[in-house]
């Protein structure tokens, strides 16, 4: 059972206070009507499902109800850090470019 730092509450709490909210930063197509079936299907269902360091979202359900970004290793379960969605996105994009 993880301990997760909520960047909004500024506190490290137990996993039972949070709920998992899936892969982070999946962009919704800007113009869904123009997306092909394949593009739309990709957005809807295809997932990175990364083995290793993974950007995901958790929601502090029992606390502030905020969704935030977590970078976690899906094999070792080590958590590298947690960020607000906005702060995490910068880091995520930088990593994606690298």
């Amino acid at each position, binding site marked *: 059972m993880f301990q997760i730092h909520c960047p*909004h509450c500024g506190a490290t*709490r137990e996993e039972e*206070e949070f709920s998992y909210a899936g892969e982070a930063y999946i962009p919704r197509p800007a113009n869904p009507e123009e997306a092909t079936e394949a593009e739309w299907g990709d957005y809807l269902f295809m997932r990175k499902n990364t083995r290793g360091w993974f950007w995901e979202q958790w929601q502090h*359900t029992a606390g*502030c109800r905020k969704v935030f970004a977590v970078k976690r290793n899906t094999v070792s379960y080590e958590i590298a850090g947690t960020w607000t969605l906005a702060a995490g996105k910068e880091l995520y994009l930088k990593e994606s470019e690298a």
Partner: protein
Amino acid sequence: MPNFQPYLQSPLVNFNLPALTVPADASQKVRANELPLLGYIVLRGDLSDAAVAQAISQATGLAVPAASRFSSGEAGVLIWQSPDECLLITARAAVPALLAACGKHFDGLFAQAVDNSGGLTTVYLSGVEHVTLLRHLGVYDFESIEAGDAASTVLGKAGGLVCRVDGDGVFLVIRRSFADYLWLLITKAAIPYRFAVAKLPSAGKSPFLRLVDAGSPSKRPVAA
């Protein structure tokens, strides 16, 4: 129109706590009782926005609390819930005026006040083992909660907000529809500790307990 005589019922009404209430004594290592029928107002607004913070302070007379803390004053208790949410606990009678004051001060701001007085209740939990009791109920590090702290966390399979005023006990703010469950869970967990539904102590400096007196039947709102 007939002469209506509205009455209020608190969420724990079915346990008939007033009838079970006994005087507090030291042999009761865990004591609990409800602070019935308080007023609860959810205040929404970006607390880091100085204008919002000021508006909240002006409307309530209370300082905006730091993260996971609460402030208190004449109007009651203002509890930090999230970066854009506070919970104001006040006397039931004060709710309409406070809502109006919020409406006035929030004008032009992206901030709101929502009445949730029917949705919540508060339980005072005390006795020398009250922290142990909390440790039976949930994963939070309850020993670390200091005076002025407010922790929103899970208790069993429900949520709850735990506030400490002093070392004697804590105030649990819980949802109406989970109140039965949580009360059962508390009484179950308290079996080893000579549990009692004990008379609430006199208000003293406790901003929570003061609200009970303020909310006594004679001071209840007259139906409009």
